[in-house]
């Protein structure tokens, strides 16, 4: 005999299965993102293994991928923020430039799952890649009409030329995921959600605070075309004030901890980053040979994308992209490529371009896959000249 409670439970389960199935069918982004993140993981692990076989690259376990900036995040997670500079070869370095949200996202893996710090950071970045793909798919959902287009769009994130950074304990995928969510919610006029995502974004990377500008543009656009109640206007204002909150709280913390609220900017002097004219930097890059010129071409591609976004009436994306290109460029071109390739507006424009010119897909994927595999080999070869 089955008790009435169990019978009711089984009836519910039986009934919910088709509901779940139909829900998954109507939200293919969820499983597409999962498939792509696993494929991306397999891709990076395979090429890392090739590098190990070929030239004894130091890749034995997943945590071995954690290098350079990941090491700085490790110091934040293990030791907290420095009280005064003492790191690096000259003793003038401090870990203040490495914003808190990404190491915080790795904390549960270390604390609850008892993973090593390095592995926690790598796993956190891989998990963030899933969020990055999913949020980007949701951002372009209205533009992708078929399952194959959804796969293509997700593939732009999962196999982008600089996808390596999603597997090595860097903050790029978390930043990308939060930026996509912020834009997605802004488009839906969910002001508080958009502002909250903006606040988290500004606590992930310094450039994240630029989202305030995009939010402002989105809000002004909405205010121009709709009659909004006083309460609605206050909500919009509250969302705007939320955008830089993550950075503001970090600055408060730094002031109490070190005495310098702008320590995360001032510490950049350690890496030789002093303000320059970004346009002069661009010209210099184009006049040089080899990688500098490649980066120069990427900078031009970034500016062209800004122009295209303006033409497409997406000023909130255009302004964001322009600002996040100009900010790192006003220091130098070092690491610029990864900043560009981990920007949702850039990949959004790329998706639209490739969607309208399908013949270009194989060419692009050939370039992206080749570049990504080359980056993995370079990374494990210990070269930080072009990767960092």
């Amino acid at each position, binding site marked *: 005999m089955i008790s009435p409670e169990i019978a009711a439970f089984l009836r519910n389960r039986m009934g919910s299965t088709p509901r779940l199935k139909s829900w998954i069918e109507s939200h293919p982004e969820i499983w597409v993102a999962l498939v792509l993140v696993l494929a991306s993981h397999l891709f990076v692990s395979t090429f890392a293994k090739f590098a190990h076989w070929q030239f004894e690259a130091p890749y034995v376990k997943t945590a071995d991928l954690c290098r350079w900036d990941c090491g700085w995040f490790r110091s934040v997670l293990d030791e907290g923020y420095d009280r005064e500079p003492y790191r690096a070869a000259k003793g*003038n370095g401090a870990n203040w430039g490495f914003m808190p949200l990404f190491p915080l996202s790795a904390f549960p893996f270390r604390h609850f799952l008892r993973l090593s710090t390095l592995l926690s950071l790598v796993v956190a970045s891989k998990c963030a890649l899933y969020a990055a793909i999913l949020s980007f798919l949701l951002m372009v959902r209205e533009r992708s009409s078929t399952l194959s287009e959804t796969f293509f769009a997700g593939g732009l994130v999962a196999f982008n030329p600089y996808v390596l950074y999603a597997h090595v304990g860097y903050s790029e995928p978390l930043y990308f995921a939060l930026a996509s969510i912020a834009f997605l919610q802004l488009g839906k006029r969910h002001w508080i959600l958009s502002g909250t995502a903006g606040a988290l974004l500004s606590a992930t990377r310094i450039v994240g605070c630029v989202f305030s500008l995009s939010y402002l543009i989105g809000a002004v656009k909405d205010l121009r075309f709709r009659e909004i109640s006083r309460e609605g206007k206050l909500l919009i204002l509250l969302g705007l004030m939320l955008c830089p909150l993550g950075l503001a709280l970090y600055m408060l913390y730094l002031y109490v901890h070190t005495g310098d*609220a702008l320590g995360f900017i001032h510490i950049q002097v350690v890496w030789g980053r002093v303000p320059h004219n970004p346009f002069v930097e661009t010209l210099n890059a184009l006049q040089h040979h080899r990688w500098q010129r490649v980066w120069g071409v990427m900078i031009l591609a970034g500016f062209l994308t800004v122009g295209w976004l303006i033409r497409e009436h997406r000023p909130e994306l255009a302004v964001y992209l322009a600002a996040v290109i100009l900010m790192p460029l006003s220091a130098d071109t070092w690491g610029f490529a990864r900043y560009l390739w981990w920007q949702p507006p850039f990949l959004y424009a790329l998706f639209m371009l490739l969607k309208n010119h399908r013949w270009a897909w194989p060419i692009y994927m050939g370039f992206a896959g080749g570049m990504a595999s080359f980056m993995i080999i370079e990374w494990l070869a210990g070269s930080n000249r072009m990767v960092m």
Partner: protein
Amino acid sequence: MKTAWLLALLTIFSGVYLVVAYMVCRPKVSPEYRAYYIERISSDWKNGPRYAAQPEQGIVFGTEGLPTFVKYIYGFSAHQAWGRWTDGNLGKKAGVVLDQGLSGSVCLEVRVMPATSQLNKEITVTFGDQMKKVVLHSPRFDNYFLDFFEPNAADIVEFRFPDTPPPIPDGQRLGLGMEYLRLFRENCISVQKQIGAEAQANPG
């Protein structure tokens, strides 16, 4: 009711941003930190190791680090085996900040060589509120003596250039090459007599 909550939150956030703006304008940092990280007029953080020396023994710029009587220096490029250059990229001033101020009669002895761009130009040397003008005519290293009298303890020796020196191919803007700088708590006539007597006693 909801409006009241929104207004309360907006007020709190405004308060947070005002506090942050105040903190940005008023950093609580040491002068060395300010010189190196904020004003970027110093090329070394903490200027390396410290060696024991008195003001009379001076700063030997060719030695790595600084003597214990110096807090920090600014406007100088990295040390080289012979000494240090002042670098216009770090500002139109170069200075030595003492750990403890000196008062009364002070003689500053400095062995310097001007860069070509600074030859025959008037350079201002200050110690506390006192100011002296020097024109360097020799293109080679030479010793210069400057007398100061400070009633209150002064702790900064500063070299001010009339303009920013032009850049050399490696990007540096060389002003003065300094071998050493010494501070004596007496006037320069006595100091020069002592040095002359020592030189006669040790002609080698």
